[in-house]
């Protein structure tokens, strides 16, 4: 067993990490199927996002609880069964008490089972960390996913139909809107453009950061070289004096 201390994130760091730096939709590009499928309106996107958040919280906590009991060789099937159970229970809860969301999500609700985010977080994080940490990580990823979905849905609905159903906010009439944005083709296009913009911003930031680092390194090296030259000049002078 290595003596390395494992890096522990604070709860706030966990949540923020899932929201921005490792946002599942825009940065990690995971869980694409529901992202494209349910973002025709903001309500559906929020419904899906909150469902995934609910599932993530539960599965991360449960898997973190049983992580020491499960033998390593059969952990993947056990994780899959736990996730499938949670999603099945969610399906019934929605079908019984929130039937509008159930109808809106359609086939994508049971497909939360194979959403790469959930199994990915279970395998990468929850199987190694405490219950509290896993819960906050799940919350961060779930919120990040909801954020990504909502942004995409907001754009598609606003530009595609001219109004946002949830807020009752109308920008322009439906028949002058870019109707194809609520069609499948528009989903691909909007997501591609959004990821492209976010990538450009991130690369820009990274380039600026790198430039500042390079500048600092250059100054430090210059100082070092100057110091070395001064030292040598001093030595030379001493040698001349001693002669």
């Amino acid at each position: 067993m290595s003596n390395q201390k494992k890096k522990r994130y604070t709860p706030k760091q966990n949540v923020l990490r899932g929201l921005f730096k490792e946002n599942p939709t825009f940065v990690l590009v995971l869980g694409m199927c529901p992202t494209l499928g349910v973002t025709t309106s903001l309500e559906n996107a929020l419904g899906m996002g909150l469902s995934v958040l609910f599932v993530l919280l539960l599965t991360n906590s449960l898997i973190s609880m049983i992580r020491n009991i499960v033998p390593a060789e059969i952990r993947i099937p056990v994780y899959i069964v736990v996730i499938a159970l949670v999603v099945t229970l969610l399906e019934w809860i929605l079908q019984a008490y929130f039937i509008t969301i159930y109808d809106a999500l359609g086939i994508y609700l049971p497909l939360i089972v194979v959403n790469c985010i959930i199994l990915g977080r279970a395998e990468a994080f929850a199987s190694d960390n405490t219950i509290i940490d896993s819960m906050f990580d799940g919350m961060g990823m779930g919120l990040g996913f909801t954020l990504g979905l909502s942004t995409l849905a907001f754009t598609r609905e606003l530009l595609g139909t001219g109004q946002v159903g949830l807020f009752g906010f109308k920008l322009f009439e439906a028949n002058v809107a870019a109707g194809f944005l609520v069609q499948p083709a528009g989903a691909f296009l909007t997501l591609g453009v959004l990821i492209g913009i976010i990538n450009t911003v991130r690369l820009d930031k990274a380039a600026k950061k790198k430039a500042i680092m390079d500048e600092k390194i250059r100054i430090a090296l210059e100082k070092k070289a100057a110091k070395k030259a001064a030292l040598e000049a001093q030595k030379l002078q001493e040698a001349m004096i001693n002669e």
Partner: protein
Amino acid sequence: MSDLLTLAFTSFLVQNIILNQFLGICSFLGVSNKRSSALGMGLAVFFVITLSGIVTWTIYYEILYPDLTFMRTIVFILVVAAMVQILEMAIKKFSPTLYNSLGVYLPLITTNCAVLGVALLNIQKGFTFSEMVVFSAFTSFGYTAVIFTFSYIREQMVKAPIPEGFKGIPSGLVAASIMSLIFKGFVGLI
């Protein structure tokens, strides 16, 4: 018979699983960089979807129906995982080169939305056995055809002067949107 032909045509082109139903996007974006890996992945997914469609349909109507239907999702995903495992062992034994080129993508087919999606759709749409076979086979063939065609496009797109932020996945998504528009034209053919 003409019903089956219409079903085949619809599931292959009109309601194409990637461009219209949005199932299997993660692997579609991840594997379509090179022609060889795209073809390998497409064929593997074709076999997994068709076989697991048949197996899950049979299990549902022979074993689960009508008392145990509530175990549907759990049983289906376990069947899919088992089929992928079997396929992986088979490929490893019969074609180690293919196994090496597919690498880490093979176990990922388990989490491919398309596989579980088609299995669930078969039940939801109430297909008979022959309809189910036609639907599974042609839907997954739609996946193979689209991912293979797309890999050609992506290989060419690498040579174009695309801005840094748009290289890779964003430009791929824009290309997929144009493909989706093209496939929409098939609606009027039925």
